[in-house]
């Protein structure tokens, strides 16, 4: 973070340069830095820079005289920096790819360990080649480029509810725990250094403040390492949020302690007043960071209110505002990490209500991509830096540090839990405490902070760095590798994979109101009361300002319902037409089954649906068809500023995967279908409309596909022909959309195998079941919805018309 870097300009390079090259180098670096921030740190391969200087000078000289025009010219230095960056990123990505190709490796060794090993190898190779290892883990690069994506990813997708429910515990661990760790490690380390009178080693010269500084660097749990390891062990939500939350929130403590000790290490004395100022500074740093983040978050939310006409740049606002929040916080020496977390958490609910579904997916994927690349790079760089780093190995210092870190962590967690458990409703068990203590991994932040230290001011910088690296390696390798077996051995509760069901959501809301109500009856203003007040305020004022249109009035439950509905619609579209022929799954629970009316009345209502005049139905069908056609044509014209959703095109790319997935999907599909048959509230956002229309289209084709699937022999090549047919912009092609027959075939085959019946004339059963399902809903649906249903689900009579073009 700049605050940390401010006093010492990038120390990794520029030291050994000849005088004359220095100026040009600085200019070059600045230039590169401004164009591509990564360039500032990762390129400076000193010898190369020197070369480039000479090279350029030579160029200038040559230009004066006439020379044969070079047909082919090599100018590596022109592209060196971005090229090297790309190489690093490529290496990182390939490594990540590679690990998952080796079958059992990734289940035994965590990825982070493997990446460090790769980094070590790469560093070794560079050294062997005689090149100078680039100072890849330079603090500027790390804090300004590599760290923010990871933290933003964490902040944006922070599970707010569990976080807020445990915020007290998290803060306790993050603040008190970290301070305790810092002083315990620092103090005892100093004592150990002084304790050996017989061996007046260099350790004697370490001052107490230096030890404390070292303690404060080494004591903070690292979010990057924690994320990398905890994502693989799938621990339950409570433990995950405790350790992870701690690693995020201790940033403020680390910043303050670091600055405090760096500041006073020079002076040598600390007064009570200084300590007091430190506490104040902590509050300012932490709360200031949160405030800055919240302000930018609100700004981002407000901006996203107006993006409905330029959907393509929507995701950008999220990234840019967050990055600016981080930078602004760093500018004032506030906690950048906390600013990012606050920014992401504040903006998310509002932004998500405003932006389109596509943008949401984009944000999700970009964040995940950036953060995983950053994470990979960080671990590789850690390995490279280890090979490179100036080491000074001191057995006493290193072993004592490792042991003290472990002891301090255990004592800290156990002690704090003892206090916290007095206030907690869900107590932390011994197992939980163990995992929290064991999950306290150290990582690259500590290394970067150590790297920042000034060699002149801290004579033991090298030793510190070595010790830091050892502790990091110890925690990442030993603890990171053993935590998974331990979690299984201790039978710690795992995360439930099941996605949230609507019933759970209803009852979560119900419970909130119930508890608030009970508190109100008792006249006791507890947590729920204030939470309710906050929600009310949010709904009444904040949402109105930050969310465009009707969605601002949408209660959480309805929003959840819509989201779920849309997800299912999209899954349905993406997985092809085969998804859910009513007939494909012979025994389904449908609306009819839960409808309070008994079957007879339902049947009657069913009849009512087809009563729509046949002529009218034809008309609707025609409209729908022409609309579809137009959509396809419009899609063909490429427009940079509007990205029209095309579920079919999405579908083609992962056709093969889909085919595989089809089998697994079958079960899911069953449920999906149920939802789809439920009448929905009027569509309120364009995306919703589109998704629903898409799903409607899909169902529309079913009869045709079905027929095709049944009549045509299942053709394994069917899907490969698809792209060809797709290019014909006629509606019929759509209907025969490749994945659909394919999937239908799969389904049919299954069913055939199961039932071993003659399915030659499949038409009848599907008609019967689909027909009877629909009518049940019909009475509950309003006119508009009925129309939609009608469009999406042709009655028996319509089937014949639709089928005709497709008959072979």
């Amino acid at each position, binding site marked *: 973070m700049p605050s940390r870097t401010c006093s010492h300009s990038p120390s990794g390079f520029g030291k050994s340069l000849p005088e004359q090259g220095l100026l040009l180098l600085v200019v070059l670096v600045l230039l590169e830095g401004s164009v591509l921030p990564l360039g500032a740190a990762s390129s400076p391969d000193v010898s190369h820079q020197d070369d480039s200087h000479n090279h350029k000078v030579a160029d200038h000289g040559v230009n004066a005289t006439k020379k044969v025009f070079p047909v082919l010219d090599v100018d590596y230095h022109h592209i060196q920096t971005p090229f090297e960056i790309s190489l690093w990123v490529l290496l990182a990505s390939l490594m990540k790819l590679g690990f998952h190709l080796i079958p059992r490796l990734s289940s035994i060794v965590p990825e982070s360990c493997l990446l460090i090993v790769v980094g070590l190898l790469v560093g070794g190779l560079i050294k062997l080649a005689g090149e100078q290892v680039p100072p890849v883990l330079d603090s500027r690069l790390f804090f300004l480029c590599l760290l923010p994506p990871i933290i933003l990813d964490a902040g944006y997708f922070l599970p707010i509810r569990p976080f807020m429910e445990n915020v007290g515990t998290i803060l306790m661990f993050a603040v008190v725990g970290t301070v305790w760790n810092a002083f315990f490690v620092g103090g005892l380390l100093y004592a150990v250094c002084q304790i050996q009178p017989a061996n007046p080693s260099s350790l004697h010269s370490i001052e107490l403040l230096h030890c404390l500084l070292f303690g404060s660097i080494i004591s903070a749990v690292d979010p990057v390492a924690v994320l990398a390891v905890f994502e693989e062990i799938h621990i339950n939500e409570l433990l995950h949020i405790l350790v992870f939350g701690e690693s995020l929130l201790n940033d403020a403590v680390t910043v303050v302690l670091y600055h405090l000790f760096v500041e006073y290490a020079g002076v040598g004395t600390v007064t009570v007043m200084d300590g007091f100022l430190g506490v104040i500074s902590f509050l300012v740093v932490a709360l200031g960071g949160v405030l800055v983040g919240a302000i930018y978050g609100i700004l981002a939310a407000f901006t996203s209110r107006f993006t409905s006409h330029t959907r393509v740049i929507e995701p950008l606002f999220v990234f840019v505002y967050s990055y600016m929040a981080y930078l602004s916080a760093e500018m004032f020496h506030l906690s950048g990490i906390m600013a990012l977390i606050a920014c992401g958490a504040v903006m998310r609910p509002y932004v998500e209500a405003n932006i389109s579904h596509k943008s949401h997916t984009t944000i999700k994927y970009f964040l995940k991509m950036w953060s995983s690349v950053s994470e990979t790079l960080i671990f590789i760089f850690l390995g490279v830096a280890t090979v490179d780093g100036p080491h000074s190995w001191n057995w006493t210092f290193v072993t004592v540090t490792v042991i003290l870190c472990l002891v301090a962590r255990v004592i800290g967690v156990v002690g704090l839990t003892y206090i916290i*458990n007095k206030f907690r*409703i*869900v107590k932390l*068990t011994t197992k939980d405490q163990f995992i929290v203590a064991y999950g306290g991994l150290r990582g690259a932040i500590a290394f970067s902070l150590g790297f920042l230290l000034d060699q002149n001011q801290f004579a033991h910088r090298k030793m510190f760095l070595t010790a830091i690296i050892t502790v990091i390696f110890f925690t990442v390798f030993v603890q990171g590798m053993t935590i998974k077996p331990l979690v299984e051995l201790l039978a710690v509760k795992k995360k439930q994979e*099941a996605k949230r*069901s*609507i*019933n*759970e959501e*209803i*009852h979560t*809301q*119900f*419970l909130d*109101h*119930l*508890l608030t*109500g*009970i508190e*109100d*009856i*008792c*006249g*006791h203003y*507890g*947590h*729920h*009361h204030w939470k*309710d007040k906050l929600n*009310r305020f949010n709904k009444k004022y904040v949402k109105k300002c930050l969310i465009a249109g009707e969605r601002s*009035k*949408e*209660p959480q*439950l*309805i929003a959840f*319902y819509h989201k*779920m*509905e849309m997800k299912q619609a999209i899954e349905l579209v993406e997985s092809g037409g085969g998804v859910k022929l009513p007939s494909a799954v012979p*025994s*389904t*629970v*449908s*609306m009819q*089954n*839960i*409808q*309070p009316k008994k*079957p007879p009345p339902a049947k009657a209502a069913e009849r009512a649906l087809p009563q729509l005049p046949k002529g009218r139905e034809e008309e609707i069908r025609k409209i729908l068809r022409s609309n579809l056609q137009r959509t396809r044509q419009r899609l063909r014209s490429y427009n940079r500023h509007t990205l029209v959703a095309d579920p079919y095109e999405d579908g083609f790319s992962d056709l093969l995967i889909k085919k595989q997935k089809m089998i697994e999907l079958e079960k899911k599909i*069953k*449920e999906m279908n*149920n*939802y789809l048959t*439920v*009448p929905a*509230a009027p569509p309120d956002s364009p995306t919703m409309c589109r998704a629903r229309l898409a799903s409607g289209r899909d169902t529309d084709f079913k009869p045709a596909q079905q027929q095709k699937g049944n009549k045509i022999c299942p053709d394994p090549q069917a899907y490969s022909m698809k792209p060809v047919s797709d290019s014909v912009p006629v509606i019929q092609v759509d209907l025969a959309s490749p994945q659909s027959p394919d999937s239908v075939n799969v389904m049919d085959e299954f069913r055939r195998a199961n039932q071993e019946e003659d399915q030659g004339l499949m038409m009848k059963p599907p008609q*019967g*079941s689909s027909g*009877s*399902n629909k009518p049940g809903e019909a009475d*509950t649906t309003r006119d508009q919805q009925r129309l939609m249903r009608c469009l999406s689900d042709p009655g028996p009579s319509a089937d014949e018309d639709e089928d005709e073009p497709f008959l072979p």
Partner: protein
Amino acid sequence: MLLVIEHKFFPFKKKREQMCMAVNLETEILFMLLPINNVQQFLNLSKHVLYCSVCFMIMDFLLSHYSRENLENIPALANNPIRRQIIGAFFDKRNQHQNEVGSFEEIGFEQFLMVMSHFRPPTLKTTEEERETMRKEKLRFLFNMHDTDNDGTITLEEYRKAVEELLSKSGAIGQEAAKAIADAAMLEVASTNVPHMAPDDFYEGITFEHFEQILKGLEMESRMHIRFLDVDTTTMHCGRSTS
């Protein structure tokens, strides 16, 4: 407002126990939460032992009864969408652990405590079995809130009504969506519990077993609790089951 009365008012208590009193000054409704196992026993005892005027005042409150109107007049409740159901739960005899059905006209301190006992959190010492019982009790409480006609199932009608109430503060959108949501939720229950159903079958409604099944993931036993300041919740027991 929450008052804590030290044990000095209760000289017969040897252990340093606290008595917690919840006073809603706005409505002058007073309820108490006591670290006492048997409410009846306490009531009898206290008649003889309580001596100071404060205690007589407390006695007065303890013996008074409250009707629905009293609860409905609590201003803080006015904004609660499920106000009717909450109040209903206090007057529901099914929540008194006595196998009775129907509802009270008015409730006293004892009934209140019984209802409140559903909001106890589990402790570290709670065994797995006790947890299970606790969870069942809490779920039963919720189930009873939905199952208004006490026929053992939550029918679609009842569920719709519950969701409508839940969304009753969000205007027209809420009412429109409520039915759809309830239907979707019902479908979900039906399809998770009875995956194979012929088109002509009829799912009557959510039974308690199914209700348990769908809310398995919510960890009701620890989530459904009320945190009272200054109360050592571990000693908060009430109800006849322990007597």
